[in-house]
Protein backbone atom coordinates (compact mmCIF):
# COMPACT_ATOMS: atom_id res chain seq x y z
CA UNK A 1 0.00 0.00 0.00
CA UNK A 2 1.29 3.42 -0.93
CA UNK A 3 2.18 5.75 1.92
CA UNK A 4 0.60 9.18 2.18
CA UNK A 5 1.09 11.63 5.01
CA UNK A 6 -0.76 14.89 5.36
CA UNK A 7 -0.96 17.78 7.77
CA UNK A 8 -3.51 20.58 7.97
CA UNK A 9 -2.73 23.97 9.48
CA UNK A 10 -4.20 27.47 9.56
CA UNK A 11 -2.10 30.17 7.99
CA UNK A 12 -2.00 33.14 10.34
CA UNK A 13 0.38 35.43 8.40
CA UNK A 14 -2.44 37.60 7.10
CA UNK A 15 -5.36 38.17 9.51
CA UNK A 16 -7.46 39.57 6.66
CA UNK A 17 -7.60 36.15 4.99
CA UNK A 18 -8.75 32.72 6.13
CA UNK A 19 -6.34 30.18 4.66
CA UNK A 20 -5.72 26.51 5.37
CA UNK A 21 -2.53 24.80 4.25
CA UNK A 22 -2.55 21.07 3.54
CA UNK A 23 0.92 19.55 3.18
CA UNK A 24 1.04 16.19 1.42
CA UNK A 25 3.98 13.78 1.40
CA UNK A 26 4.15 10.43 -0.38
CA UNK A 27 1.94 8.85 -3.02
CA UNK A 28 -1.79 9.27 -3.54
CA UNK A 29 -3.18 6.32 -5.44
CA UNK A 30 -5.94 3.73 -5.64
CA UNK A 31 -4.82 2.09 -2.41
CA UNK A 32 -5.17 5.12 -0.13
CA UNK A 33 -7.12 7.97 -1.77
CA UNK A 34 -10.51 6.73 -0.58
CA UNK A 35 -9.23 7.00 3.00
CA UNK A 36 -7.60 10.40 2.44
CA UNK A 37 -10.53 12.11 0.67
CA UNK A 38 -13.01 11.95 3.60
CA UNK A 39 -10.50 13.84 5.79
CA UNK A 40 -10.48 16.64 3.22
CA UNK A 41 -14.27 16.66 2.98
CA UNK A 42 -14.45 16.95 6.78
CA UNK A 43 -12.05 19.89 6.68
CA UNK A 44 -13.96 21.63 3.89
CA UNK A 45 -17.28 21.13 5.64
CA UNK A 46 -15.93 22.56 8.89
CA UNK A 47 -14.29 25.60 7.23
CA UNK A 48 -15.77 29.06 7.48
CA UNK A 49 -17.10 30.57 4.26
CA UNK A 50 -14.51 32.23 1.99
CA UNK A 51 -11.68 30.08 3.36
CA UNK A 52 -9.04 29.27 0.78
CA UNK A 53 -6.99 26.08 0.77
CA UNK A 54 -3.38 25.81 -0.36
CA UNK A 55 -2.24 22.27 -1.11
CA UNK A 56 1.55 22.01 -0.76
CA UNK A 57 2.60 19.24 -3.17
CA UNK A 58 6.36 19.59 -2.80
CA UNK A 59 6.74 16.16 -1.22
CA UNK A 60 4.03 14.44 -3.25
CA UNK A 61 5.62 11.89 -5.57
CA UNK A 62 2.61 10.29 -7.27
CA UNK A 63 -0.98 11.20 -8.07
CA UNK A 64 -3.39 8.98 -10.02
CA UNK A 65 -6.47 9.94 -12.01
CA UNK A 66 -8.92 9.08 -9.24
CA UNK A 67 -7.02 11.35 -6.84
CA UNK A 68 -7.19 14.11 -9.43
CA UNK A 69 -10.93 13.49 -9.61
CA UNK A 70 -11.17 14.10 -5.87
CA UNK A 71 -9.19 17.34 -6.18
CA UNK A 72 -11.66 18.49 -8.85
CA UNK A 73 -14.43 17.78 -6.37
CA UNK A 74 -12.58 19.62 -3.58
CA UNK A 75 -12.36 22.55 -6.01
CA UNK A 76 -16.13 22.47 -6.52
CA UNK A 77 -16.84 22.38 -2.80
CA UNK A 78 -14.30 25.01 -1.78
CA UNK A 79 -15.33 27.47 -4.49
CA UNK A 80 -19.01 26.86 -3.66
CA UNK A 81 -18.19 28.24 -0.20
CA UNK A 82 -16.52 31.29 -1.70
CA UNK A 83 -12.95 30.11 -1.18
CA UNK A 84 -10.06 29.44 -3.53
CA UNK A 85 -7.97 26.34 -4.05
CA UNK A 86 -4.31 26.59 -4.97
CA UNK A 87 -1.72 23.90 -5.59
CA UNK A 88 1.77 25.03 -4.62
CA UNK A 89 5.23 23.63 -5.33
CA UNK A 90 4.12 20.61 -7.38
CA UNK A 91 7.03 18.55 -8.79
CA UNK A 92 7.25 18.40 -12.60
CA UNK A 93 5.75 14.90 -12.92
CA UNK A 94 2.75 15.95 -10.83
CA UNK A 95 2.26 19.15 -12.86
CA UNK A 96 2.53 17.07 -16.03
CA UNK A 97 -0.32 14.75 -15.06
CA UNK A 98 -2.48 17.62 -13.80
CA UNK A 99 -1.96 19.37 -17.14
CA UNK A 100 -2.77 16.33 -19.28
CA UNK A 101 -6.21 15.98 -17.68
CA UNK A 102 -6.83 19.73 -17.91
CA UNK A 103 -6.70 20.54 -14.20
CA UNK A 104 -4.44 23.50 -14.90
CA UNK A 105 -7.51 25.15 -16.45
CA UNK A 106 -9.42 24.67 -13.22
CA UNK A 107 -7.02 24.98 -10.29
CA UNK A 108 -4.34 27.66 -9.91
CA UNK A 109 -0.81 26.36 -9.49
CA UNK A 110 2.17 28.26 -8.09
CA UNK A 111 5.88 27.58 -7.84
CA UNK A 112 6.19 28.99 -4.32
CA UNK A 113 4.18 29.20 -1.14
CA UNK A 114 4.56 32.97 -1.21
CA UNK A 115 2.78 33.19 -4.58
CA UNK A 116 0.08 30.87 -3.29
CA UNK A 117 -0.51 33.06 -0.23
CA UNK A 118 -0.86 36.14 -2.42
CA UNK A 119 -3.31 34.32 -4.66
CA UNK A 120 -5.44 32.95 -1.80
Amino acid sequence: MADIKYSISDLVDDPSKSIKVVILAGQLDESNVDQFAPKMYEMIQAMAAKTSVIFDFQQLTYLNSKSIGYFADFYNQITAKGGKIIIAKAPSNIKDILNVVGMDQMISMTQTMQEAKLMA
Partner: protein
Amino acid sequence: METISGSINQNNSDKPVEIKIELPTNAYFMSGIRDFTLSLIENMTDFSSQWAYRFQSVVDELANNAIEHGSSANDKILVTFFAIANKEIKIVVEDHGHPEKPMKAEQVMAQMEKNKNKDKSEFSIRGRGLAFIVDKWTDKLEITDRPSGGLRIAVTKYLNDENFKTSDRSDDPKNIII
Protein backbone atom coordinates in the same frame (compact mmCIF):
# COMPACT_ATOMS: atom_id res chain seq x y z
CA MET B 1 -1.42 -16.31 -0.03
CA GLU B 2 -1.23 -13.62 -2.69
CA THR B 3 1.79 -13.72 -4.92
CA ILE B 4 3.17 -11.77 -7.81
CA SER B 5 4.76 -13.92 -10.47
CA GLY B 6 6.62 -12.93 -13.59
CA SER B 7 8.95 -13.95 -16.38
CA ILE B 8 11.53 -12.19 -18.51
CA ASN B 9 12.45 -13.14 -22.05
CA GLN B 10 15.42 -11.21 -23.40
CA ASN B 11 16.86 -12.46 -26.69
CA ASN B 12 19.39 -10.65 -28.83
CA SER B 13 18.94 -6.95 -29.52
CA ASP B 14 16.77 -7.47 -32.63
CA LYS B 15 14.13 -9.42 -30.75
CA PRO B 16 11.60 -7.89 -28.38
CA VAL B 17 12.21 -7.98 -24.67
CA GLU B 18 9.10 -9.37 -23.03
CA ILE B 19 8.34 -9.15 -19.32
CA LYS B 20 5.12 -10.62 -17.91
CA ILE B 21 3.82 -9.85 -14.45
CA GLU B 22 0.78 -11.49 -12.93
CA LEU B 23 -0.78 -9.30 -10.27
CA PRO B 24 -3.39 -10.06 -7.63
CA THR B 25 -6.42 -7.80 -7.99
CA ASN B 26 -5.53 -5.66 -5.02
CA ALA B 27 -4.47 -2.02 -5.24
CA TYR B 28 -1.98 -2.80 -2.47
CA PHE B 29 0.50 -3.97 -5.10
CA MET B 30 0.25 -0.97 -7.41
CA SER B 31 3.10 1.03 -5.89
CA GLY B 32 5.38 -1.95 -6.59
CA ILE B 33 4.29 -2.09 -10.23
CA ARG B 34 4.88 1.65 -10.55
CA ASP B 35 8.39 1.30 -9.11
CA PHE B 36 9.04 -1.57 -11.51
CA THR B 37 7.80 0.42 -14.51
CA LEU B 38 9.94 3.43 -13.63
CA SER B 39 12.99 1.22 -13.17
CA LEU B 40 12.30 -0.64 -16.44
CA ILE B 41 11.96 2.55 -18.45
CA GLU B 42 14.96 4.21 -16.83
CA ASN B 43 17.23 1.18 -17.19
CA MET B 44 16.14 -0.22 -20.54
CA THR B 45 15.39 2.87 -22.59
CA ASP B 46 16.77 6.31 -23.19
CA PHE B 47 13.49 7.97 -22.37
CA SER B 48 13.61 11.22 -20.50
CA SER B 49 12.56 11.07 -16.86
CA GLN B 50 9.37 12.86 -17.89
CA TRP B 51 8.48 9.93 -20.12
CA ALA B 52 9.43 7.39 -17.48
CA TYR B 53 6.92 9.04 -15.14
CA ARG B 54 4.32 9.18 -17.92
CA PHE B 55 4.63 5.46 -18.59
CA GLN B 56 4.42 4.81 -14.88
CA SER B 57 1.06 6.57 -14.89
CA VAL B 58 -0.14 4.76 -18.03
CA VAL B 59 0.59 1.35 -16.48
CA ASP B 60 -0.99 2.35 -13.17
CA GLU B 61 -4.18 3.60 -14.85
CA LEU B 62 -4.53 0.50 -17.05
CA ALA B 63 -3.93 -1.89 -14.17
CA ASN B 64 -6.31 -0.02 -11.87
CA ASN B 65 -9.03 -0.12 -14.52
CA ALA B 66 -8.49 -3.85 -14.99
CA ILE B 67 -8.69 -4.45 -11.24
CA GLU B 68 -11.72 -2.28 -10.60
CA HIS B 69 -13.82 -2.86 -13.71
CA GLY B 70 -12.52 -6.12 -15.11
CA SER B 71 -11.94 -8.47 -12.24
CA SER B 72 -13.42 -10.13 -9.21
CA ALA B 73 -11.82 -10.20 -5.78
CA ASN B 74 -9.03 -12.78 -5.45
CA ASP B 75 -8.53 -12.74 -9.21
CA LYS B 76 -5.36 -11.83 -11.13
CA ILE B 77 -4.52 -9.55 -14.01
CA LEU B 78 -1.64 -9.94 -16.43
CA VAL B 79 0.63 -7.01 -17.33
CA THR B 80 3.06 -7.60 -20.21
CA PHE B 81 5.81 -5.22 -21.30
CA PHE B 82 7.29 -5.55 -24.81
CA ALA B 83 10.21 -3.44 -25.93
CA ILE B 84 11.67 -3.53 -29.43
CA ALA B 85 14.92 -1.65 -29.85
CA ASN B 86 14.54 1.62 -31.75
CA LYS B 87 10.99 0.74 -32.69
CA GLU B 88 8.40 0.64 -29.96
CA ILE B 89 7.44 -0.05 -26.40
CA LYS B 90 4.13 -1.81 -25.83
CA ILE B 91 2.21 -2.55 -22.66
CA VAL B 92 -0.65 -5.06 -22.56
CA VAL B 93 -3.02 -5.44 -19.61
CA GLU B 94 -5.44 -8.38 -19.56
CA ASP B 95 -8.24 -9.16 -17.14
CA HIS B 96 -10.84 -11.89 -16.78
CA GLY B 97 -13.92 -9.69 -16.71
CA HIS B 98 -16.07 -8.52 -13.84
CA PRO B 99 -18.35 -11.39 -12.79
CA GLU B 100 -21.44 -9.22 -12.24
CA LYS B 101 -20.87 -6.25 -14.53
CA PRO B 102 -18.83 -7.53 -17.48
CA MET B 103 -17.90 -4.85 -20.02
CA LYS B 104 -17.28 -5.38 -23.70
CA ALA B 105 -14.48 -3.61 -25.53
CA GLU B 106 -17.04 -1.66 -27.54
CA GLN B 107 -18.62 -0.28 -24.35
CA VAL B 108 -15.25 0.76 -22.90
CA MET B 109 -14.29 2.53 -26.14
CA ALA B 110 -17.65 4.30 -26.31
CA GLN B 111 -17.31 5.47 -22.70
CA MET B 112 -13.77 6.66 -23.36
CA GLU B 113 -14.84 8.68 -26.41
CA LYS B 114 -17.68 10.19 -24.41
CA ASN B 115 -15.27 11.18 -21.64
CA LYS B 116 -12.84 12.74 -24.12
CA ASN B 117 -15.52 15.12 -25.28
CA LYS B 118 -16.93 16.01 -21.87
CA ASP B 119 -16.57 19.45 -20.41
CA LYS B 120 -14.19 19.44 -17.43
CA SER B 121 -17.04 20.48 -15.15
CA GLU B 122 -19.08 17.39 -16.09
CA PHE B 123 -16.64 14.84 -14.72
CA SER B 124 -17.24 12.80 -11.62
CA ILE B 125 -14.28 11.44 -9.64
CA ARG B 126 -13.70 8.87 -12.42
CA GLY B 127 -13.19 8.91 -16.16
CA ARG B 128 -9.91 10.74 -16.73
CA GLY B 129 -7.50 7.80 -16.76
CA LEU B 130 -8.14 6.15 -20.13
CA ALA B 131 -9.56 9.21 -21.87
CA PHE B 132 -6.66 11.53 -21.08
CA ILE B 133 -3.64 9.94 -19.42
CA VAL B 134 -3.52 6.70 -21.42
CA ASP B 135 -4.82 8.10 -24.69
CA LYS B 136 -2.67 11.22 -24.80
CA TRP B 137 0.56 9.60 -23.65
CA THR B 138 0.50 6.68 -26.09
CA ASP B 139 0.38 6.47 -29.90
CA LYS B 140 -1.85 3.44 -30.31
CA LEU B 141 -4.59 2.16 -28.02
CA GLU B 142 -6.33 -1.14 -28.79
CA ILE B 143 -9.14 -2.54 -26.68
CA THR B 144 -10.33 -6.05 -27.53
CA ASP B 145 -12.51 -8.74 -25.97
CA ARG B 146 -10.63 -11.82 -24.81
CA PRO B 147 -12.13 -15.08 -26.11
CA SER B 148 -12.32 -16.48 -22.58
CA GLY B 149 -13.91 -13.31 -21.16
CA GLY B 150 -12.53 -10.02 -20.01
CA LEU B 151 -10.58 -7.37 -21.86
CA ARG B 152 -7.16 -6.95 -23.38
CA ILE B 153 -5.92 -3.38 -23.56
CA ALA B 154 -2.71 -2.78 -25.50
CA VAL B 155 -0.92 0.56 -25.75
CA THR B 156 2.07 1.31 -27.93
CA LYS B 157 4.53 4.18 -28.04
CA TYR B 158 6.38 4.33 -31.35
CA LEU B 159 9.96 5.50 -31.59
CA ASN B 160 11.68 7.09 -34.56
CA ASP B 161 8.38 7.44 -36.32
CA GLU B 162 8.23 10.30 -38.84
CA ASN B 163 4.61 10.86 -37.85
CA PHE B 164 5.73 11.32 -34.30
CA LYS B 165 7.25 14.67 -35.15
CA THR B 166 3.95 16.05 -36.32
CA SER B 167 1.86 14.36 -33.67
CA ASP B 168 0.19 16.70 -31.22
CA ARG B 169 0.40 14.06 -28.50
CA SER B 170 3.87 14.64 -27.23
CA ASP B 171 7.53 15.19 -27.86
CA ASP B 172 9.82 12.38 -28.90
CA PRO B 173 10.83 10.30 -25.88
CA LYS B 174 14.13 9.32 -27.60
CA ASN B 175 15.18 5.85 -28.56
CA ILE B 176 15.06 2.57 -26.76
CA ILE B 177 18.64 1.41 -26.26
CA ILE B 178 18.13 -2.14 -25.06
